[in-house]
């Protein structure tokens, strides 16, 4: 009796915690997930930003997104971590928290699937970071490697 009560309470707490932390969650990246996110964003202009914990310039782009997000609601940005390493899960989550980007949609490459995941997105991309994909409302996109200027990001996402 006691154990079932305890179990019920534990389950309740667990679920509430999960719900509260919903915004900070990350989804394991896959071809299916990419299809879904592209479909969801069809009809609008959006940005897919890929980053790694080992990439200092990526942090600068995350900081720009953080700034834009503080000024504008519903920023159409999807953030994907490319480390493909379960060992850095906490580090990845901490960084997203630090930049207060939990409200955005987050994905991460599955452990050991870095190149496979990269190839799914763009077979002409070699893994250099940060990598930004500018999606147009009709689904067409182009990629750019390296830190993107704040003016360009603002123009793409806000104006």
């Amino acid at each position, binding site marked *: 009796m006691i154990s079932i009560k305890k179990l*019920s309470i534990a389950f309740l707490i667990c*679920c509430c915690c999960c719900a509260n932390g919903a915004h900070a969650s990350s989804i394991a990246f896959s071809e299916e997930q990419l299809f879904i996110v592209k479909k969801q964003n069809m009809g609008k202009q959006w940005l897919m930003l890929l980053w790694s914990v080992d990439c*200092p310039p990526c942090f600068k782009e995350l900081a720009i997104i953080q700034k834009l997000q503080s000024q504008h609601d519903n920023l159409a940005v999807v953030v994907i971590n490319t480390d493909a390493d*379960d060992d850095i899960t*906490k580090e990845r989550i901490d960084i997203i928290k630090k930049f207060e980007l939990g409200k955005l949609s987050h994905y991460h490459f599955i452990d050991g699937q870095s*190149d496979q995941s990269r190839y799914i997105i763009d077979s002409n991309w070699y893994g250099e970071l*940060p990598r930004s994909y500018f999606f147009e409302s009709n689904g067409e996109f182009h990629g750019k490697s390296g830190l993107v200027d704040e003016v360009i990001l603002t123009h793409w996402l806000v104006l």
Partner: protein
Amino acid sequence: MLIMIRTLLQVITITSLMLTATLTAAVEHNHQAMALKEVQAGNCEKTEITCAKTVTTAFSPNGDLWRLWTLNSILYFQMSADNGLTFSTRRSVGIDKEKISARNENRPKIAFDKYQGVYLSWATPREKKYTADVRFAYSNDYGKTFTKAITVNNDNLLTGHSFNEMLVTDDGDISIVWLDSRLAYQLRKEGKQTNGSALYIGKANYRKNQTTFSNQPLANNTCVCCRIAMDFNNNNELAVFWRHIYGDNIREFALLTLSQDENAQPLPYQVSHDHWQINGCPHQGGAISINDNNRYHMVWFNQGDLGKGIFYASSSDQGKTLTQPISVGVQSAQAAYPHLNTNGNKIDIVWTQFTGTEHELWHQRSNDNGKSFSAAELLAISSKGSDRPFIIKKGNVSYVSWHRLKQGHLVQAL
């Protein structure tokens, strides 16, 4: 009991509804939010090499092949007396546990002298993001015991020091180069703009009781996330090859040779001219090998406006002039991560390609000092991931070392 289970089910149902409601609110707030799913952090508790992200290999002067890897803050090594067919029992390096950078371009290094000396160097992350120290330990009894690890960089700053490379002469002269952020740290403190890291060299000799590493800057404004490469030329001068930042974030490879005359200012030459403009991290360093006739052979990877893919070139005057770069591998097949080594007039180049599902290890050889190359040959395949490949040398035979994540470490004669 039935009532209790029913109560539990009711709690679960109510909680699920609450969760759904909260999630719905989240989705409404941001319609891009998706179902919650988080892959649990994999805890590779094992000590086996297959769990490691990187493997470092080198032949010792007596012909033993050593391989080195790290897991859970411990360095492990094995030896092979038959060029990698079989290995000795795994042993841990007898130093205190500490974090060791071993991913992609960053990995521990191992070298030897001719007196049973074993030299280890690695980067250890510090408490703040993008800060690390270059560390070092020495064994004078062929790995049975090691000295207490010391820090090579001498600035006592909580800033970046990593991507260490190490060479040791037969007599125990240690040269460690690394990417160092102390200059950037100071400039930022002064409110000044800066870009990239600096290239530093540290020297010591434990056999001569020179156990404190010198620290000397060699170049400023280097790329911050690509490995360095180095080799001795025929005058026992150290040549260092790295990715530099030119102008407005043009990331090209540079080469300098450290003269025996320590007062001479090293003169770096720009080696690649592919015009890769990127304010970011290529995560791909190059490789250099200097052969018996003092010709410098180099490979690199770029994605510039003027050159994309892997390139090979050589120089007879320490990089001042260069042969016309030759394209290596298939660019459209994701050719990347080249490494090379020389053996007389033989030049071996290895690299990886990617099919979308499998990694491939490729090899190409020149028998005429790089003037021409044989057709590329597929050596091996990996289905679960790929570390960078490296060529190591024993006598006049070259071997490729390629760690395949969760699959195993391959050593194969070329």
